[in-house]
């Protein structure tokens, strides 16, 4: 044995076993992240990247340029609306689904399996399916309507006399549809772990079903709902696939992550692309900090 003490041997073995994990996260995640921050402060394109080098030509130009474009602010507002509405709807539908499937019934396994499909299926397949079903030419949804609607290519339309952003609402509906199973799984697991006594006591006290939900069950679900809200918010805020595949960012649905992609590939402006990604990440962190402060305060009030 080379080690002096067992404890030292253990420490060395631990580091040896964890090192492959650390190396790959460091090389493929942490270092690239630092580089992304550096790129945001450099005027780089794929053509001149070798001349600029790692430390050359630091500038704030990317940020002033990106923030001066009205397109960026529109995209940021879209991202906000899309994230808040998508997160909220998916959690509400997930909660309703969990309540409906709480008790056993014939065919529950089948319905449960079916509910998980939108979440499990590959995003490319389900976005293509939505495009087909909503197509104004041969989409099945439009055969049910008196007048075909171009759900994914029309920025504005009127519904009951009110002007609505059609494509943005469709993208939000997709988000709710695709991610409510995620909320459903978490909330159902929590509901099934709740002690039955509290609910039974409330029945004895004469509480109605809505009162039992409001005053007995919901207070026990707040934690998991708050956690889901954070997770879904973080994932949706920076989500690229769904919007890009559904609309390509057209028809008033451009979110910041799609802009980041377009600047990176179509415009070949790495600096501006990185700057927007950094702004997006910073806005996300600010929201998280505000939320956690707010939520941590609420937690204390509840005791």
């Amino acid at each position: 044995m080379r080690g002096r003490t067992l404890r030292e041997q253990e420490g060395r073995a631990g580091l040896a076993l964890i090192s492959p994990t650390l190396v790959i996260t460091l090389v493929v995640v942490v270092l690239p992240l630092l580089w992304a921050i550096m790129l945001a402060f450099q005027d780089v394109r794929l053509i001149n990247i070798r001349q600029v080098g790692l430390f050359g030509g630091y500038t704030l130009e990317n940020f002033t340029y990106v923030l001066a474009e009205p397109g960026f602010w529109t995209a940021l507002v879209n991202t906000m609306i899309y994230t808040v509405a998508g997160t909220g709807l998916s959690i509400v539908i997930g909660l309703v689904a969990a309540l409906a499937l709480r008790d056993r019934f014939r065919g529950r396994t089948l319905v449960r399996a079916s509910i998980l499909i939108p979440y499990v299926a590959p995003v490319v397949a389900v976005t293509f399916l939505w495009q087909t079903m909503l197509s104004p030419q041969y989409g099945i949804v439009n055969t049910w309507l008196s007048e075909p609607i171009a759900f994914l290519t029309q920025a504005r339309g009127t519904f009951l006399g009110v002007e609505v952003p059609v494509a943005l609402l469709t993208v939000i509906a997709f988000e709710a549809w695709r991610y409510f199973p995620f909320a459903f799984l978490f909330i159902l697991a929590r509901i099934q772990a709740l002690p039955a006594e509290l609910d039974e006591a409330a029945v004895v006290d004469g509480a109605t079903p809505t009162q039992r939900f409001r005053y007995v069950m919901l207070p026990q679900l707040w934690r998991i709902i708050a956690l889901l809200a954070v997770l879904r918010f973080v994932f949706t805020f920076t989500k690229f696939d769904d919007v890009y595949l559904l609309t390509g960012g057209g028809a008033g649905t451009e979110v910041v992550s799609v802009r980041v992609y377009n600047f990176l590939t179509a415009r070949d402006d790495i600096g501006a692309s990185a700057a927007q990604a950094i702004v997006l990440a910073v806005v996300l962190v600010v929201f998280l900090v505000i939320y956690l402060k707010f939520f941590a305060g609420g937690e204390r009030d509840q005791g």
Partner: protein
Amino acid sequence: MTRDRFERALFRALRPLVIAVLFAITAFPLYYMVMLSFRDIQELILEPGSLWPRDFTLDTYTNVLGRQGFLIFMRNSAIVAVVSVAVTLLISIPGAYAVARLRFFGRRQVHFLFLAVYLFPAIVLAIPLFVLFTMLGLRGSLFGLILVYIAQTVPVTVYMLRNYFETVPQSVEEAAAIDGCTRLSTIWRVVLPLSKPALMATGLYAFMIAWNEFLFALLFLVEKRDSWTVSLGLSQLAGSIEIPTTVLMAGSVVLTLPIVVVFFAGERLLTEGLTAGAEKG
């Protein structure tokens, strides 16, 4: 009628309705996808509202697998997914064991790193990796893609496995050590056989990420058609007007089916494994 009785009656009536709606909005799209994949495009254009094909055709599948190259895409996806799963497990098993059992410098900080990687936006990471892989000439190679998938899944799988490893009784491991097992052979002979459900779940997670992922596949492989994964292939061909929608729907089925089968097969095994363990106490 009292409020209580009214509410009970209301929810008794509403519940089946909600269940029916949820089933419809999730099962119908899947049914529609499968149904369209067996139809000729002419039929769809003539009768867009029909819910049952007049003639079943398999031409859509032969077309999409052969002419459109989905067989090659499937091979690529399979390589990417299988290698990702294997290497992810290979890296995360020792990592998770170390975090669960061994006291080493920086053990506490590791959690923070893993959480950060889990929540970290892929779109930010996409920029430097795109630039790096362009400079290294790694774009178009499946190797680069696999590397990114592993890096994205390993922190999460370490976390998943660690939680399970901690439930393995330490006394079993000590017994193995007394019987002369080294640390690695203890992991191999004692911990892993006891952790099969967790290994399944972890492998499943890594497989789903690798099979479904789109952004990095798009960034790294788009210019080289021979390297396309199924996801990328479908997304690229979906834009073209020459390929009939029903043929692409067959492609959708080919993309979706493996993941749905793997998920539900794995889910059942997983719950079985967990309950079997619980019965033994």
